[in-house]
């Protein structure tokens, strides 16, 4: 009872200050200067149609490098938290019963299409809504589909680690090339091309493809780690 009272008290204090602070922010009015600058500059300087992509990958590219690092740390930390030694004679199966024929055939048909959609989303990240993170997440759902419909579908963690490392190295080394050429870290050194062209935006496209591969492999690894550790046999042992 006392706990409920304190919770309500904290909620009302926090709620009061949130309402007090944010209802003073004008809603639906003009953009501020930073937003104006980015919207004016991104189609002219970088020839990138999607202003959000221009901010995420170019103007705030260093942020994105940190973000990718956080994602990598989360995937690694998850692996080490969930680590357990394999018992003798244990099988690498996730579910007791195989899923039905309909799900298996359906996921076979859907799997290449989902991969294709994910690839499209991260390759066209600078032209249309989407980008590396979204495309990577879409590809990870394809592997989730295969993992839940086939008991014996295995994901090779070595391959995943290699893809992830190579993608990360590509991202960081593109940044260092900018430094070597006497400009700033992650500055665009390739020709920008034409607006609304697939080969526009200089290094933005390459970085988003690398991010897409990295996010896809990391999320696949996370899903596989969690699923492998939670099959029915594993829960009984403690």
């Amino acid at each position, binding site marked *: 009872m006392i706990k409920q009272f304190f919770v309500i008290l904290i909620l009302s204090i926090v709620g009061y200050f949130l309402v007090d602070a*944010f209802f003073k922010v004008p809603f639906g009015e003009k953009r501020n200067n930073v937003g104006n600058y980015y919207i004016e500059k*991104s189609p002219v300087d970088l020839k990138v149609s999607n202003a959000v992509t221009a901010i995420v990958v170019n103007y705030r590219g260093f942020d994105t490098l940190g973000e990718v690092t956080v994602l990598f740390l989360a995937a690694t930390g998850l692996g080490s*938290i969930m680590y357990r030694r394999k018992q003798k004679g244990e099988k690498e199966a996730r579910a007791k019963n195989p899923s039905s024929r309909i799900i298996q055939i359906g996921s076979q048909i859907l799997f290449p299409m989902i991969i294709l959609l994910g690839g499209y989303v991260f390759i066209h990240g600078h*032209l249309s*809504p989407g980008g590396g993170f979204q495309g990577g997440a879409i590809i990870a759902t394809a592997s989730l589909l295969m993992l839940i419909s086939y008991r014996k579908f295995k994901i090779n963690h070595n391959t995943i680690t290699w893809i992830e490392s190579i993608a990360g190295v590509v991202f960081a080394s593109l940044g260092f090339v900018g430094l070597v050429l006497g400009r700033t870290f992650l500055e665009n050194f390739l020709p920008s091309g034409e607006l609304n062209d697939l080969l526009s935006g200089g290094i933005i496209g390459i970085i988003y493809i690398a991010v897409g591969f990295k996010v896809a492999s990391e999320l696949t690894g996370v899903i596989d780690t969690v699923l492998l550790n*939670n099959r029915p046999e594993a829960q009984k042992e403690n």
Partner: protein
Amino acid sequence: MNEFLTISFYGTAIVLMLIGLYAALAKKNLLKIVIGLSIIDSGLHLLFVAIGFISNGTAPIFSPEVLESAQQMVDPVPQALVLTAIVIGFATTAVALALVIRLYKHHNTAAIDEIKNLKW
């Protein structure tokens, strides 16, 4: 009309954040606490994107037809920040869930008052 929109967008976002905070403070199941934290995340994202909105705004994406209408584009900065925040939110949620699974396997319960012997 604008008043109504302000209240509905900011209000929804703040109410979501408070719901998440309530779940994180009052619930005893660890899984529900993690869900509460991710509800706070969602409310925060909605609040950020709502701040960047302008009336009759379009997505900040240029195409040959809308190149002239740059004045009507919504602010891209909050959207870029939210894109970052979603990924970080995913990472923290994944690690938190892994810890919950570990605690559940160790103690055979996910109730935090039983794990830590809390009175209330």
